[in-house]
């Protein structure tokens, strides 16, 4: 390969040429690679327009910046929702005229919801790297 791409040292080139004089199969293979290189040497992979490269960095920067925004938004939402839920449930449970079944139902609903959320989060965070259905052929 180095011979085709002119990546060999002078000594390596001499050794290569000596071998090629004696080995027809290597010569033929080398000729094939040379033809391939000749055909493709003036070809380039089409690049995206310059405008994409001009905005490349700003796309990345905006995404990095937005991540902080999303984190703050999520934290704020969780805090406000949690406080709101706590306030409503506490008022509900403290009211004497609410039937016991309703109070138990509310507590069960909240505990069940929290359990589900924690379970899903745990699965996503800790087990998302392995797909348990990977070995099952479709």
């Amino acid at each position, binding site marked *: 390969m180095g011979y085709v791409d002119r990546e060999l040292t002078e000594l390596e080139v001499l050794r290569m040429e000596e071998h090629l004089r004696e080995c027809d199969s290597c010569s033929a293979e080398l000729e094939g690679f040379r033809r391939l290189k000749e*055909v*493709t040497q*003036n070809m380039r*992979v089409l690049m995206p327009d310059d405008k994409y490269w001009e905005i490349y960095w700003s796309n990345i920067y905006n995404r990095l910046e937005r991540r902080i925004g999303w984190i703050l938004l999520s934290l704020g939402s969780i805090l406000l929702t949690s406080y709101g839920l706590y306030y409503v449930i506490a008022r509900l449970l403290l009211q004497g005229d609410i039937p016991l079944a309703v109070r138990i139902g509310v507590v069960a609903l909240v505990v069940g919801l929290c359990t589900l959320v924690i379970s899903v989060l745990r699965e996503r965070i800790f087990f998302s790297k392995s797909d348990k259905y990977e070995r099952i052929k479709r």
Partner: protein
Amino acid sequence: MNLIDEGSAIERCKKGDREAFAPIVQKYMKPAYYVALGYVGNPEDALDLSQDAFVNAFRHIKRFDSSKSFFPWFYSILKNLCMNHLNRLRRRREDSIDEMAEEEGQVPIPIEAVGPEDRVVQKDLEVKIGQALQRLRPKDREIIILQHFQDYSYQEIANLLGIPMGTVMSRLYSARQALRRELERMGVSY
């Protein structure tokens, strides 16, 4: 940007300076695109995935040893993203009865001729070579794009991919054989 400048830029990134990441992105955005294109074979996806990789790299920059070259570390992030993308596409093709999903990602890699030969080289040879490239394994396609089409030297490829020169040569050998076999199978004469 030499290794020392790169190292100091990364140290600033580790302290949360997003602007310090700009010269690193500018330096490596095109090689990142070529590597991603080699893996996924689709220019739009390659552009998106290369940007995703830079975002991920910045998020995990504290794990990086700034005394070493950035790209080989970044390359592993990019490669993982590309392989995940390919796995998602494969699962979608397996699940979908839609023919469009079957053909997704099978568009020829866009190739253009430059220089005086562009009048001689037939347009459909470019398309055929793009199709043949698309059918190669990602590893083969990646190294062909870097060496054949973008003229990176063996040393540059070795530095980019974090592999020894000998590995560059052996991968290039098998990639060229694969490309020749594919072109022969397609009946392309050149």
